């Protein structure tokens, strides 16, 4: 593998103005495929979710999945697109073993969604509008595994194995217009854009949106031009960049590589590039040439899709609140600082906290539990906090038990242990583990007398007016009662016993 020369990002930015473009493929989470009733399920036994249509056998007829069309329209509406009143499917022809019928059924001249936009907010609050050229319906290809050779890559492979379970899975391809003016924010914008698309399709419920499973895949186009020049430079397209971090890194790398090539007076070759996570670099794929003539023509086996205004408006009425607006509303409702809120978002706990607050906890309490004890335990168990097994109802009940004085914070943590160990609801755990705060003054008094007798010098200090020394006696009492006393009440009783004003 050749190693490309690159210049520093800062150096590249001094001379060149980057122009970006993205093609993001979103796999829909319909139960069946785009054009056949075979199941759309990830991870099953190879070639067990296929039928004659997905295998491209002769004589089969595709039939469009209505749900997939509706999901596509929902995506278009969420991206502020126009919805075509009339659109068709087309055959995109090429020979490759992942596509058994030798064409991909796609859309060509008349995509179902077009002319949209999305506002992308960068970390510092800068808003950048990305214009959407189109979002069209198509189908996924099968999965190739290259065998033999040293690297598992296609180069040097002896043969390849094909699993067609993914063949025919509904895809929506979202294509941006050229994105100009991002400057040095280009890598950050790239990441934020793909993150926003992922969030939108997840929020719509139309895709599982798991990048590690390839539900959202990004092809990133990059070109550079000297500042002040209107004409775009020659672009490269880095394919299948499949994590948010990789999108940012791939765009940054291509900017640095293009700059080095241009600096040396050589023209950029228009080509596809492959991103390598291990070396954090791209390598040359195939040059774009006349081999890219896909000989599109209208798909004769599928009739056009007509979208009536009623249908589109019915779908529009189903749109959930856009994620960015929802975040703004929730942060305002909860009164979290920017930092607090960002931590909640990054921990993936926004939904949990929203439900916890809706179930009756204060926003502060919800944050305290989810971001504190629950997040800590999740980290130890190496799972997402939301997946630990604590429900919003549990948090609310624990908070109620604390507010009623039945348990204190320390006992609440033990209650959480019990809930996670499957011992039932928080109230049941309190009951079974005998965790209730000791509120019987008689029992507390005995413990206090014992603690005072054990530390006569401390008792003397308190009598002498050093009220802050009471902490040592409280600690002794808490130890004897195994943390089950109400520390505030204990303090009052100690001071009363010693005849000192708190």
């Amino acid at each position, binding site marked *: 593998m050749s190693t490309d020369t690159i210049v520093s990002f800062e150096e590249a930015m001094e001379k060149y103005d980057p122009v970006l473009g993205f093609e993001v493929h979103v796999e829909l989470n*319909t*139960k*069946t495929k785009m054009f*056949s*009733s*075979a*199941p759309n399920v990830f991870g099953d*036994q*190879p*070639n*067990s*979710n*296929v*039928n*004659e249509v997905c*295998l491209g*056998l002769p004589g089969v007829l595709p*039939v*469009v*999945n*209505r*749900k*997939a*069309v509706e999901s596509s329209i929902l995506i278009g509406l969420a991206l502020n697109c126009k919805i075509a009143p*009339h659109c*068709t499917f087309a055959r995109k022809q090429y*020979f*490759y*073993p992942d596509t058994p019928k*030798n064409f991909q059924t796609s859309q060509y001249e008349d995509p179902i969604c077009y002319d949209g936009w999305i506002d992308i907010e960068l970390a510092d609050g800068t808003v950048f509008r990305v214009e959407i050229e189109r979002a069209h319906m198509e189908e996924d290809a099968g999965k*190739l*595994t*290259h065998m033999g050779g040293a690297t598992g890559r*296609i*180069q*040097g*492979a*002896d*043969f*390849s*194995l*094909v*699993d*067609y379970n993914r063949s025919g899975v509904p895809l929506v391809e979202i294509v941006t217009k050229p994105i100009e003016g991002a400057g040095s924010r280009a890598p950050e914008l790239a990441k934020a854009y793909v993150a926003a698309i992922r969030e939108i399709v997840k929020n719509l419920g139309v895709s599982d949106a798991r990048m590690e499973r390839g539900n959202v895949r990004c092809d990133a186009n990059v070109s550079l031009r000297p500042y002040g020049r209107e004409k775009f430079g020659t672009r490269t397209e880095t394919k299948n960049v499949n994590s948010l971090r990789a999108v940012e890194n791939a765009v940054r790398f291509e900017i640095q590589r293009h700059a080095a090539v241009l600096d040396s007076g050589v023209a950029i070759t228009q080509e596809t590039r492959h991103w390598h996570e291990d070396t954090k670099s791209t390598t040359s794929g195939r040059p774009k040439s006349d081999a890219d003539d896909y000989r599109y*023509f*209208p*798909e*004769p086996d*599928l*009739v*056009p*899709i*007509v979208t009536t205004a009623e249908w589109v408006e019915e779908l529009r009425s189903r749109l959930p609140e856009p994620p960015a607006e929802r975040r703004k509303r929730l942060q305002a409702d909860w009164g979290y600082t920017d930092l607090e809120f960002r931590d909640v978002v990054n921990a993936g706990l926004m939904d949990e906290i929203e439900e916890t607050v809706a179930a009756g906890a204060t926003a502060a309490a919800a944050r305290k539990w989810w971001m504190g004890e629950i997040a800590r335990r999740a980290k130890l168990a190496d799972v997402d906090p939301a997946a630990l097994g604590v429900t919003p109802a549990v948090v609310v009940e624990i908070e109620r038990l604390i507010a009623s004085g039945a348990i204190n914070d320390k006992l609440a943590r033990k209650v959480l242990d019990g809930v996670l160990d499957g011992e039932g609801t928080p109230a049941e755990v309190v009951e079974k583990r005998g965790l209730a705060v000791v509120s019987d003054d008689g029992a507390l008094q005995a413990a206090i007398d014992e603690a005072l007798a054990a530390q006569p010098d401390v008792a003397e200090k308190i009598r002498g007016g050093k009220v802050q020394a009471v902490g040592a006696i409280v600690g002794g009492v808490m130890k004897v009662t195994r943390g089950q006393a109400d520390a505030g009440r204990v303090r009052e009783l100690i001071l009363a016993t010693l005849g000192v004003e708190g």
Partner: protein
Amino acid sequence: MAAINREQVAHLAQLAHIEMSDDELDRMANELAVIVDSVKSVSEAAGADVPATSHPIPLTNVMREDVVGHVLTAEEALSGAPDSADGRFKVPAILEES
């Protein structure tokens, strides 16, 4: 429109992994040339203002509900494959040795 020649047919056959004899290549080149000519006469009749026809019948919105239907087993899916391994279709190396 250039006529389809024998070399182009041989190239397509290779791409599609269809084994064809010399006789078959000759015959197919001739037959395809006739088809290309027929299409050409249609193209001449239709002006630039006529959109490409995908369907002769004005049908729209033929759709099905999102319900799982007919599925093959992996064994059935692979039964027509020239070669398979690990429950998957086995295909020749995609790139030539470079």
